[in-house]
């Protein structure tokens, strides 16, 4: 039991920061997200023998979390269907500086406005650094669907932020890009 305890701790602990980030970005509710991560860890511990070996183990845990998050979002959607932009600002961290504030708020608003399945792809690929193949496993969809959702999501994010803040802000982005 001692070795399994050590294995589980050594494997699961380093994943927790990323799991919390993914859950909170999807749910936009700190408490609900951490509850979900706890639920996910409990399931990973209970089904420890079913984990896949090697690099797949990370996507195994993300799969558990993603499925729990989708169930939770469906439950929430049943109660209220509107996207709450206020909670985006309340629950996600403050932007690093004042001048970036507007741009970040817009990006978060645009992310929140994406359909859930597109938002999940963007978060897994862009933020959590999952490979396209691992993202496909987590979401239970073919690789081609991952690519098309990613493409649509990025196009929407780009359009919605640039439509609202064309001009000086955009100039400053371009100067930053190498």
């Amino acid at each position, binding site marked *: 039991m001692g070795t399994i305890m050590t294995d589980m701790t050594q494997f699961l602990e380093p994943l927790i920061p990323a799991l919390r980030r993914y859950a909170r970005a999807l749910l936009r509710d700190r408490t609900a997200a951490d509850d979900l991560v706890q639920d996910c860890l409990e399931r990973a511990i209970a089904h420890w023998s079913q984990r896949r070996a090697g690099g797949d183990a990370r996507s195994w845990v993300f799969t558990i979390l993603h499925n729990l998050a989708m169930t939770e979002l469906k439950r929430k959607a049943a109660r209220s269907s509107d996207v709450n932009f206020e909670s985006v600002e309340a629950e996600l961290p403050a932007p690093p500086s004042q001048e970036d504030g507007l741009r970040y708020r817009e990006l*978060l608003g645009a992310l929140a406005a994406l359909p859930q399945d597109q938002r999940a792809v963007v978060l897994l690929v862009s933020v959590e650094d999952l490979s396209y193949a691992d993202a496909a496993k987590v979401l239970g969809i073919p690789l081609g669907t991952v690519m098309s959702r990613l493409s649509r999501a990025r196009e929407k994010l780009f359009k919605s932020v640039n439509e609202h803040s064309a001009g000086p802000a955009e100039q400053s*982005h371009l100067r930053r890009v190498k």
Partner: protein
Amino acid sequence: MNSRPITEDDLNAFVDRRLDPGRQAEVAAYLDAHPEVAKRIEGYARQRDQLRTLLRPIADEPIPPELNVRRLVELQERPSRSNWWAAAAAAIVLTVFSGASGWMLRGMSEPPLQGVASLGHEAVDNYAVYTPDRLHPVELRAVASNELVDWVSQRLGRRVEIPNLEASGYRFMGGRVVATPHGPAALFMYDNDHGVRLVMLSRPMAVDQGAPMQPVSQGDVSGFSWAAKGMGYSLVGPADSQTLHPIADEVRRQVSSAA
């Protein structure tokens, strides 16, 4: 470069740096030649970096204690909420089974218990079944004492009073009618501030219509049984006999003055 056209998938993989170096160079060359596409792809890359910057602080937060893996593993080693019913069912089956085997052994080795001795074991058996019950330790609660008294008095065929053990530190929880080999009995349950529960069992006696107080002990449960004026009484609990004896005396005093 002229052999494979650039796809949207290539452009996204370029943003995520997932292309092999050869293809990466081909896409870079394509973007140099197509400023409109390049502007969009630069925007994708910029937003990708912004999202990472924006969400990084969540991953940097200290992990709350609820997410301590070691603790979660330890919690699962104990029976969880979902396992509780299975554990409770197993406990009851074990009690019934050990009770049954006890009866069989008793039948082979010694004559069946009668009178106050039998009553004491009936009290212990009912104590084992009902006091661990978290949902329904009693059928009628203390607030319904009048109803309880009417019910058990009607089933036992004589007036039964509920002893008050507040002075001994035990509150009345409630009670129910239970089965014994000698017919229905009244079960009254009490508890104290530490969650210690006591059971008093009472039924009419065919044998031992009047009998002095005698100890009963079975496993971790002990107590005292006696009979007076055709009614038998047994008070049992997990406490040692030195603690229970004065409480049994108090019960006897109250029921004899009421009768």
